[in-house]
């Protein structure tokens, strides 16, 4: 049904989105917890920082990333000089772009979830001898489970749809960085191409459906026994 090119794009998209959402998860959880539970001086700065990619057009985010991570950028040149790593225009760049753009969404969902956890339950755990770490792992984390899954899913879905930052940082290289959105974009830019992109659009919609069903399954609330 799909052409080889389309298939590649789908596979690449999935792998980029999956990698991005998984890579972002630990940081997302850490950030969400920090913002939900701790009070520190520069908290709002961290918050604003995390959220900047949300307000910026993705292209600008991509450009800022390029400035940072590009061969001449402070981080990029460091990586290049010391490790011989070139980030821009690689699959890794696509992942980074996806992470940057979808991270705020993940953090916000996770943060809300942690805020909803009764801090007295955490205190109860500590009273039972669990240190901060064990309390976090056995009480806070599982109780925030739903929000974390939701955050992960948002991140995954947003990564699937990410276009602007990706094309800037990772370019539009078939088989390497040409994810579904980039493929759709490329197609729509050719006369008559728009109509040709419907198959990928359908695939994207299907992916949305699958993700929804999966998340519904993962987040599934245990049956409430109140009548409704």
């Amino acid at each position: 049904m799909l052409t080889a090119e389309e298939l590649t794009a789908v596979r690449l998209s999935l792998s980029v989105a999956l990698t991005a959402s998984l890579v972002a998860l630990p940081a997302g959880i850490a950030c969400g917890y920090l913002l939900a539970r701790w009070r520190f001086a520069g908290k709002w700065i961290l918050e604003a920082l995390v959220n900047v990619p949300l307000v910026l057009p993705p292209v600008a985010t991509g450009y800022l990333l390029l400035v940072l991570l590009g061969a001449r950028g402070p981080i990029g040149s460091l990586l290049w000089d010391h490790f011989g790593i070139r980030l821009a225009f690689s699959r890794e760049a696509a992942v980074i772009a996806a992470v940057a753009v979808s991270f705020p969404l993940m953090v916000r969902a996770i943060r809300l979830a942690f805020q909803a956890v009764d801090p007295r339950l955490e205190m109860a755990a500590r009273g039972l001898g669990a240190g901060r770490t064990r309390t976090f792992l056995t009480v806070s984390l599982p109780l925030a489970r739903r929000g974390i899954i939701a955050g992960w899913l948002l991140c995954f879905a947003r990564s699937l749809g990410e276009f602007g930052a990706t094309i800037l940082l990772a370019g539009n290289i078939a088989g390497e960085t040409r994810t579904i959105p980039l493929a759709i974009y490329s197609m729509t830019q050719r006369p008559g191409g728009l109509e040709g992109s419907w198959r990928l659009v359908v695939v994207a919609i299907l992916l949305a459906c699958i993700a929804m069903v999966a998340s519904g399954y993962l987040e599934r609330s245990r049956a409430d026994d109140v009548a409704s």
Partner: protein
Amino acid sequence: MSHLEFACQHSRSAEFRLDARFETHHGVTALFGPSGAGKTTVLAIIAGLLKPDAGSVVHDGRVLVRTTERRFLPPEKRRIGMVFQDHLLFPHLTVRKNLSYSRRAAASGRKLAALGEVAAALDIEKLLEQFPRQLSGGERQRVALGRALLSQPDLLLLDEPLSSLDARLRYRILDYVERVVRLWDVPVVFVSHSQAEVRRLAQWVVMLDRGRVVQVGTPEEVLGSSDALALQNSAAPINLLRFEKVRRAGDHCFGQLGSQEVFVPLQGPTVREPLIVQFSPRDVILGRHGLTGVSARNQLSGTIRQIVRTDYGVFAAVDVGQIVWAAVTEDAIRELDLQIGGEAICLVKAHSLEVLG
């Protein structure tokens, strides 16, 4: 022997400020006092769930908090098991996992209890695979108690641990808690509104009111005192007799009340002086002259000082050296011709006397 020193100030709201100081070196200490007196607040500070504004808590020489030194031992280091008034079970864990949540190793040489034993004692064996939201109120309370018992604590704090249990379970669990406390010598501080529970379990009572310690002492002293009465406002006056001198005779003894003696059955091997006994006015039968051939051992003669008619009934105060209140009917007053200033004999069953000490 365990020793707990509490001296903290803490403002919870504009309305309520805790400012309490007490000490206890008893096995079981009861926190007693009306709703909103600050009992839960005290426990929360001991457990480390609340940082007091100022003050210190020292348990067996370990400083748990001392604000002047900015010391605050985190709760997980305190080895304190707590049963919360609203249970605070982990909603995402089964009863079994709630019970076995604490992995704290038993303190040197003692393991308080095993899960199976605790579950059996609390009658929650069938619930082990349930989740907290599938439990009834009383079941939750028992799981919370079990969780605290299983955390191998050096000190147990129980906030109304039996309030939603029926009498049968309550007795059974009281028995069990008593055993745990005795066998392993774990000190307990508990909150209860039941005088019976306090009398049964506690060796020491701290009475709180509006954030202040109003009285400290043995259950007899505190529960029998006028303060306690005022706080309790029980429907009828309570009789308290205080014997400065006690004559021991076999497994019972006689309290000296002026020239009269009061027969007091004793449970323990020792008699403390002064000896205080308590009994209800309803346990007193008034007569006009002495009786023989009755099982009621105590017949105290005295003068009627007062006859009070209340919503709860009619009460006569008889001065037998100390005042004894008797509940009477109007019929009896008429028939026996009870009058203020008249003589009367108070017939009190030895069984009715509760020794507070």
